[in-house]
């Protein structure tokens, strides 16, 4: 479904601060594959997602989605095929607009943008059903401004917006990292449910090694802009968090900043 060939991205190119964020990345995801990404800060995880989504223009390499070369497409055009949830709960929704208006914008993703009514009666019913599935009681608050919602409710809403029109690829960039542990777990369970139910091809960045191994079908570890470990199948099933940390130390020659990763 997703194919990345030789993706390279440098920041501050040609200056003393030059930093290689992505170093010739090659990665292929089959349809329905759910990949978790781990790695220390500055490993290039977010840059990878941003280059796939078109937020950053890659310096070299190509990105193919469902056979189509999307490398030259601007962010908004790729977004019609890619769903995204960000770390910042404020980033995925328009706070001064109502829940139903936000959903309507997301629901119109692949439709023509014109002078049709923003929300039709039928759509309103559909939004209510979809919201009910989140189990947060949002189905009774369609007219409420999103600004009134909590961080967890917003992330759940963003997740719904990102997947309501089935994307070919779902990108999750530590989308539970800024939530309290209880809410984070809820949103994560919801994420897993949606991805499994719709068999969505997914890339999820996480700082939590336990999550990385227990969720999804495959785990990749990044360091210094490279993929240094790609776990799937049997090997992944046998892997423990301790193994993973040890593996990282061995391969990268540095100690992983483990406290944050292990503690949560």
């Amino acid at each position, binding site marked *: 479904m997703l194919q990345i060939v030789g993706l390279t991205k440098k920041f501050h190119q040609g200056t003393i601060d030059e930093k290689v964020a992505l170093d010739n990345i090659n990665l292929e995801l089959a349809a329905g594959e759910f990949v978790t990404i781990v790695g220390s800060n500055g490993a290039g995880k977010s840059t990878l997602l941003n280059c796939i989504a078109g937020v950053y223009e890659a310096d070299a390499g190509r990105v193919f989605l469902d056979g189509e070369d999307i490398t030259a497409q601007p962010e908004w055009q790729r*977004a019609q095929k890619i769903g995204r949830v960000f770390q910042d709960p404020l980033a995925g929704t328009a706070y001064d*607009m109502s829940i139903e208006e936000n959903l309507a914008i997301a629901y*119109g993703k692949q439709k023509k943008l014109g002078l049709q009514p*923003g929300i039709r009666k039928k759509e309103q019913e559909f939004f209510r059903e979809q919201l009910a599935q989140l189990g947060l009681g949002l189905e009774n608050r369609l007219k409420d401004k999103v600004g009134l919602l909590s961080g967890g409710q917003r992330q759940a809403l963003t997740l719904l917006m990102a997947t309501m029109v089935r994307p070919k690829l779902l990108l999750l960039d530590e989308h539970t990292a800024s939530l309290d542990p209880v809410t984070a777990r809820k949103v994560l369970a919801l994420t897993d449910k949606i991805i499994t139910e719709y068999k969505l091809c997914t890339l999820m960045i996480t700082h939590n090694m336990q999550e990385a191994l227990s969720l999804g079908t495959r785990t990749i570890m990044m360091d210094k802009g490279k993929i240094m470990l790609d776990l799937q199948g049997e090997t992944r099933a046998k892997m423990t968090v301790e193994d993973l940390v040890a593996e990282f130390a061995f391969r990268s020659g540095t100690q992983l900043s483990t406290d944050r990763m292990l503690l949560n």
Partner: protein
Amino acid sequence: MSFLAVISSIELGLIYAVMALGVFISFRTLNVPDLTVDGSFVLGAAVVAVYCSGGGNPFLALLFAFLAGLVAGSVTSLLNTKLGIQPLLAGILVMLALYSVNLRVMAGKANIHLMDAASIYQLFAGSALGRYNKLVVAAVTTMVVLLCLYLFLQTRLGFALRATGDNEQMVRASGIDTDKMKLIGLALANGLVAAAGGMIAQYQSYTDAGMGLGMVVIGLASVIIGEVVFGTKPLLRRLIAVVLGAVLYRLIIAFALASGMPATDLKLVSAVIVTVAMSTGALKKIFKKLYDIPKIK
């Protein structure tokens, strides 16, 4: 202040309300302070002056003014999105350029009189409405614009436009080209501003190349006064508030003039009104610090 002065202030206020609705689109909906307004207002007035003084239909003239405003707003937006010029500076550049363009439209004359030309305000002249005929025309026109704008903001495109001013990242992530939204928004905003300029030209029967000075501030003042006095929720109420704000602003000005203030001080008054209205948050904090005695628990 005489009754007649009140009536004509309301008439003017209703016409300026069309401009205020334009400023509302750029300033509130898109969240962009657009200074093109000072130029596009005159552009509309200039187009109307030239077309109407040549015997043209006054309604058609307003349509042309609107179209000219669309172009002006588009240029500002393209300078911003395609050439990477800051929105504020892009507006200033187009405003400046329009000063020359407007003079060209007016064939080099600094002002054009429209004493004998037809105007939309003659529509009910001599009817049972008597001296309220202009008021009715202004009110109906403004209400039509208000309603169209409200309905537009309820469409799928309108949603996308509103969201662009709210959270661009989210709009792009929803597969919508934000550059296009800004283009549509600024074009529409300046279209309304230019149409208002044309309506004013017909109302006062002349167009002056310098009549646009400070229009953006007047527009902002109307938006802010309206929101503070008449509320912001829901959207329809907010739009009506902007219209009423424009009328209220005119009444304040008329009152200031009636109480003996020289007309040359009006720009200063406008600037002070906007400054005070926009700094209420900061001023509240300052006053709180100065006068709040710490409470003992």
